[in-house]
């Protein structure tokens, strides 16, 4: 298959090739490197003019959908508006052009941002210490599990197991495996809450940690949270807060007060930094005092009127990444915290709840919610019956949503609800948008009943038609080659 739209097909050896001026000839420049280690052979690289490169990427951008394009209700992804002032400030060269090994005295502003962000996040989560090092939510989970592993090793306790609910994000069990633990799944009860009897049976002194998302991926706040905390703490099982859904309780409740021992935050979710088509994010980890000396070694401190990075503890797990943190992401999150302040953050939590509940109420008229109880910032609808009755797949339904100019919700997750959509509107969407979206959803339901082909052939109004994912996986083509 030859895609003529790829940059590699535009190679025309332009007279305007980008270049750097050399004063010596090629041979002389590289004469100190053994000949057998050099390879100046022409590689498959394009050589096109600047305007063509620019148009190429603008054309690509036109085939993308972002939060600024429209409603993006991906459940558990918290696609809120990314404030432009954050982007602008982060481009300031006085933040951008510093080498990580710069002298302390030269980066006092940068360190101040890190330190103050860390202190504010402590207050927001109710934790005793925070590391800003992890690069993403999953990296935060892994970091926290390394910490918990070190804690029990230090206590000379053998605890090889991690508990995760069956409704958990896939990163939880995957992180547990990477940190050397074995995973035990805790069942949900018929209402979508953690099954307490199952938890009691599995919460032994061989368990290091229970990883909980609260509100969970069904959008439910664990109604037995006090009992869960009690069960875990009675066996010294560390209770972990997966911060993917923190937006629901921002300014309303703090994991640290509830009894969680460790937490990660997704700055690219709750704190408005952009997702960048997959990243970069940042996944700071907060812990209670008894775990703090095991955190990654390097952290930011303030003493004698000076901010500095220091390696602090002999019990530390070590480093989890090169250098200290994803600074520009931390900066944007900190700008967001300063902009909204205490009232704004609390209001954002409340309006996230309002928007989700409003949309759920509108959709409930025609769709079946996966849960009976009071939902928080997101919810799951099940289309299992409709899929059977009308001979459609849940993917057909999701693709039809794209035709109406919206991004689709999260599809087929959590795994415990068949044929479901997981919807998280966030607080930055208006009443109007929610109403429009609800009416589109109802329209599609009618279409599913009366003309299911509209769904089966969807999408029609997008830059491309339905992509064949099965074909892609059968014989993977992961790069361009000259001769397909």
């Amino acid at each position, binding site marked *: 298959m030859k895609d003529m739209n790829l940059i590699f097909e535009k190679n025309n050896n332009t007279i305007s090739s980008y270049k*750097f001026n050399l004063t010596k000839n090629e041979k002389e420049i590289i004469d100190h490197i053994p000949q057998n280690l050099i390879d100046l052979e022409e590689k498959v690289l394009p050589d096109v003019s600047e305007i063509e490169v620019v148009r190429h990427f603008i054309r690509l951008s036109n085939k993308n959908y972002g939060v600024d394009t429209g409603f993006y209700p991906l459940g558990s992804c918290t696609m809120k508006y990314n404030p432009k002032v954050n982007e602008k400030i982060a481009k300031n060269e006085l933040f951008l052009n510093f080498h990580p*090994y710069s002298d302390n005295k030269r980066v006092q502003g940068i360190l101040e941002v890190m330190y103050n962000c860390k202190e504010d996040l402590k207050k927001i989560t109710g934790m005793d210490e925070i590391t800003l090092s992890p690069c993403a939510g999953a990296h935060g989970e892994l970091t926290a599990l390394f910490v918990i592993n070190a804690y029990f090793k230090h206590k000379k306790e053998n605890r090889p197991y991690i508990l995760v609910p069956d409704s958990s994000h896939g990163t939880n069990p995957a992180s547990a495996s990477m940190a050397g633990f074995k995973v035990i799944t805790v069942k949900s009860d018929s209402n979508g809450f953690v099954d307490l009897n199952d938890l009691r049976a599995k919460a032994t002194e061989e368990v290091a940690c229970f990883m909980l998302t609260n509100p969970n991926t069904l959008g439910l706040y664990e109604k037995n949270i006090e009992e869960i905390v009690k069960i875990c703490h009675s066996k010294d099982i560390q209770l972990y807060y997966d911060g993917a859904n923190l937006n629901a309780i921002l300014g*309303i409740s703090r994991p640290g007060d509830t009894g969680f021992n460790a937490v990660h935050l997704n700055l690219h979710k709750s704190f408005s930094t952009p997702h960048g*088509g997959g990243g970069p994010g940042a996944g700071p980890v907060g812990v209670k005092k008894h775990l703090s000396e095991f955190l990654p070694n390097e952290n930011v401190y303030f003493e004698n009127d000076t901010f500095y990075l220091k390696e602090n503890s002999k019990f530390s797990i070590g480093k989890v990444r090169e250098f200290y943190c994803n600074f520009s992401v931390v900066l944007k999150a900190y700008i967001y915290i*300063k902009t*909204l302040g205490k009232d704004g953050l609390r209001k954002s939590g409340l309006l996230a709840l309002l928007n989700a509940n409003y949309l759920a109420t509108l959709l409930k008229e025609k769709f079946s919610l996966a849960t009976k109880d009071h939902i928080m910032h997101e919810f799951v609808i099940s289309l299992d019956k409709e899929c059977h009755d009308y001979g459609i797949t849940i993917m057909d339904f999701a693709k039809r949503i794209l035709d109406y100019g919206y991004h689709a919700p999260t599809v087929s997750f959590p795994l415990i609800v068949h044929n479901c959509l997981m919807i998280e509107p966030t607080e930055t969407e208006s009443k109007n948008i929610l109403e429009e979206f609800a009416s589109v959803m109802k329209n599609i339901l009618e279409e599913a009943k009366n003309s299911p082909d509209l769904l089966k052939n969807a*999408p029609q109004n997008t830059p491309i038609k339905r992509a064949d994912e099965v074909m892609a996986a059968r014989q993977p083509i992961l790069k*361009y080659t000259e001769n397909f």
Partner: protein
Amino acid sequence: MTYFPHSEKEINEMLEKIGKSSLEDLVLPIPEKFRIKEIDIENGKTEVEVVNLFSKIAKKNKEYKSIFLGAGAYNHFIPAVIDEIVGRQEFYTAYTPYQAEVSQGTLQAIFEYQTYIATLTGMDASNASLYDGATSLCEAVIMAINHTKKNKILVDRFIHPEYMKVLKTYMNPIGVEIVIFENNPFYFDIDKFKKEWKSDFACFVVASPNFFGTIYDFSEISNIIHNDKSLLIQSITEILSLTILKSPGKLGVDIACGESQSLGIPLSFGGPYLGFIACKKDLMRKLPGRLVGQTKDRDNNIVYVLTLTAREQHIRRELASSNICSNHGLCATRASIYLSLLGKTGLKTCGLKNIENSKYLYNNIKKLNKFRVIENQAFFNEFVVITDIKYDKIKEKLEDNDILSFYPMEKDFKEYKNHYLVTVTENNSKEEIENFIKVLKELE
């Protein structure tokens, strides 16, 4: 300042519709004792207040006039085109491209990125990015352990010291033993390697250029390693070196991994950067993280999708090849734009310019009385300088002249007292280099 589009009237209408009398009713599922009234942080600010505040904070940072330091984070020129394009909301405000039909921009940019990385490394497949060079090394080693089912690894001592620290953090909980290969930092000690290599190692990890800047000739070792069905991993902190050097693929490497911050990503005090990982075909299904593949849509047009997702955490959970979910996608898009813009000619002249500039400094330092270089060190854009002048004195002098350089090797490699790492890139002008030499002379 807030970003909520609601009016008070709308909030009330919405509350009425859902049957609640106030916003506070929405928090009722949370037990009262776990609720707070407010967070103990400051009140919000207007946009103008925020801009002023951060401009004040930014001014507390004092830029260097010259950066002659790399050591894993490189001061390269960033063409204007990059910010212009990644500043488009269609790229930066999108999520992971789950819905291919509205994400072809991200998907094709990543497919092109994968092609570039595979090309530069001489490998069959690259993933869609990882966090950074250090964690990409950990992922590569995990691939090797899973592939070979061996639980011990041999690691060259002169990989980036921070990568070594991260590797130890990752390996310790899973009980993988790290054996250090005491190489020579200035040439690859093949005889010693032959003595120390054992068949029960899952892999050998080598960095080239290594932390001392040396380009190693390790072309002989891949046969030895492959005879034992083990893997050769090359860690690279400076991906631009591959514009000039023989690719890992041609050196018999099975997994190439490292840091590609050099491809148009700002220094930003250490992050976010861009981890890359690429491998030979038979290891492809063990790659961590996202992969973009080519396929067709229903109109038979060539399109791009996330593929081989059965390796990933959201499907395989505890059996996944990695826990990676978010990666550093926008940094990969930056790299894609950088590589497209520079192209064949730009990349080659960029690589050569790095060498030309660093060699100019190398040759001039050689002429100084109190500074020495290593004769015949094969390097790309960083090399080692030796001097008996006290570090504090050098540091003070450089700081006074707004120069960042002379990374003390003693910090991580105790016996290398008086050894310093110096880096020069295409971004250092001739005047800067001349001035640096002048400042060093004044130290004599």
